[in-house]
């Protein structure tokens, strides 16, 4: 399983706030927001909660678990 996110949708719903403005508001760099949106970087719990609080939503609305397709599981 991996971490999915609705960050792009949340930004759109939040007056289409730009990645740079969101990064400034949260206190991270724009590259971090880009990487989270693309699913390349898994944020810390603190950052995930900060993002959820910024959008005024439960954290589960911003981040969710994506289950692997059957037969695509990893051992260990």
């Amino acid at each position, binding site marked *: 399983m991996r971490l999915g996110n609705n960050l792009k949708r949340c930004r759109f719903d939040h007056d289409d706030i730009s990645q740079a403005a969101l990064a400034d508001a949260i*206190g991270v*760099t724009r590259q*971090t927001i880009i990487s989270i949106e693309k699913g390349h970087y898994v944020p810390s719990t603190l950052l995930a909660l900060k993002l959820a609080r910024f959008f005024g939503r439960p954290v589960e609305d911003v981040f969710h678990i994506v289950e692997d397709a059957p037969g695509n599981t990893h051992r260990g």
Partner: protein
Amino acid sequence: MQSNVESLIKLILVSLLVAAGLAAWLLPRTRFVTSRRIGDRAFVATHIIGAACGALGLALLLGVPERTLDWHLWELAVMPYVLANVYWIVVMRRARPAEATDEKQSSNIAAGAGLALAPLTFAMFAADRLQSNGLFLPSQCFPYFILALILSFSSSTLLVFRRG
């Protein structure tokens, strides 16, 4: 001639180090540096400088070893990277160190350091082989290690950063 050049380079190195030390101490107390965060551009620039300094220093050290050691050219090659890190120190002293870099940058640095172990181990193995064949001076070992470390760490961190 040689001692004049050596003295001049030593003077430049000491002057730069003293200026960097004063900057790291004084600048955070002034209004000249307002940034409290290492931005993406500064992060990337620092590691590009590191990779370039490491590569240049290694080229000098392996190409003209005696002159590089006698004239302190490898220390001169490393100086831009040292100054870039002084900027980090200045920013970190204006903010709390944990706030100066964001968590992805910290994660990239940690991953870059881990990734750098592989090329660094290979570089040290190569140096060991060269030394056992008499092609590598014992006095080259420390500069070689520092330069290879900076090159591999900066390159690896850039690679990890670019991959997201």
